[in-house]
């Protein structure tokens, strides 16, 4: 009996060590400034096409109210820092843009529906997430997303997202100084096929700063006279 318990303890210990050794190190400070962004082709459903065409950047962009509408939109903002901290039981991603503090529990993929992150206050488009390691990647799965936009920038502005959307982010180091974020959006309400997006973030020497967005300052402004 004692021998069996000892063997089990050893097995758990070995497994834990092995998993710790497998864990990719994606901790550090990163910033999008000159990194490469690639959107795959998008194949919208009729409903998705209608939503895409109806987007009006002057009033529909949630950033005008200091709100991040999707994790892809959050990642797409240039020149703001992202600080990643890997803890034993969770992952913390601190996005300078809009001061978003994302804490994601690390789970076994089979537990993904049980233990999820606390929603980000006032940003229902960001849903709830769980994370796990897969080979050289940190994987983040997000669902419970409110309707909004995958992107509000450049030619991707207005690509929609529905409550059915599920996103998978795979974070890995392309090289020691370059973080690769591969995002797959699965949303059968708006897209016929999964929409892939890849964003690369160079490592940064800078530290995180407070953002302090105020909706009255985030509006599109015109000259007074």
């Amino acid at each position, binding site marked *: 009996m004692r021998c069996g318990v000892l063997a089990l303890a050893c097995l758990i210990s070995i497994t834990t060590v092995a998993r710790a050794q497998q864990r990719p190190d994606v901790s550090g400070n990163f910033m999008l400034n000159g990194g490469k962004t690639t959107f795959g082709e998008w194949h919208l459903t009729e409903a998705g096409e209608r939503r895409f065409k109806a987007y009006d*950047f002057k009033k529909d962009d949630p950033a005008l109210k200091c709100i991040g509408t999707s994790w892809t939109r959050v990642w797409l903002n240039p*020149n703001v820092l992202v600080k990643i901290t890997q803890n034993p039981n969770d992952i913390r991603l601190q996005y300078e843009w809009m001061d978003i503090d994302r804490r994601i529990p690390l789970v076994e993929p089979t537990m993904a529906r049980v233990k999820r992150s606390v929603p980000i206050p006032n940003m229902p488009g960001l849903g709830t997430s769980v994370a796990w390691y897969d080979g050289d990647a940190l994987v983040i799965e997000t669902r419970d997303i409110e309707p909004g936009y995958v992107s509000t920038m*450049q030619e991707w502005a207005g690509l929609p997202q529905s409550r059915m959307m599920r996103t998978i982010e795979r974070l890995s180091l392309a090289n020691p100084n370059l973080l690769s974020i591969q995002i797959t959006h699965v949303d059968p309400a708006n897209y016929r096929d999964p929409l892939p997006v890849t964003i690369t973030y160079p490592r940064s020497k800078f530290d995180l700063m407070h953002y302090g967005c105020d909706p009255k*300052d985030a509006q599109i402004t*015109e*000259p007074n006279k």
Partner: protein
Amino acid sequence: MAAIPKMPRSLNRTSSLATVALVVAALIALAKPALAHHSVPVNFDQSKEITISGTLTEAKWINPHSRFRIDVKQDDGKTVEWLVEMGAVNTMRRAGFEIEKFVVGDTLTIIGWPGRGRDRSMLLRTAVLKDGTRLTP
């Protein structure tokens, strides 16, 4: 039909060329509506460079976009306000942009890209202070 932006007095030497450039910019803006806020290529015409000179009336160092308001005297003697947009204050600080050197009431020259479909708006590329110091974020 959007009004064609009037050029400030400081552009006398190149006013014809600059006016043509702004007419083209205005026509492009009318033909192709902007798609997104927070997007430089969509909101500003990077193929054209303009220069304005005037009096700094407001400097807001904020996120997501810092901005100046500058009173510019036109050729007809009328003073109009220009809106000069920049990056987030965090970005400007990291770039070593010396924001404390901008004092309301000082004369300031700004070189940058004109806004698309937005009269008297531009994105700052270089600022020239009254002592001739040039600052680029």
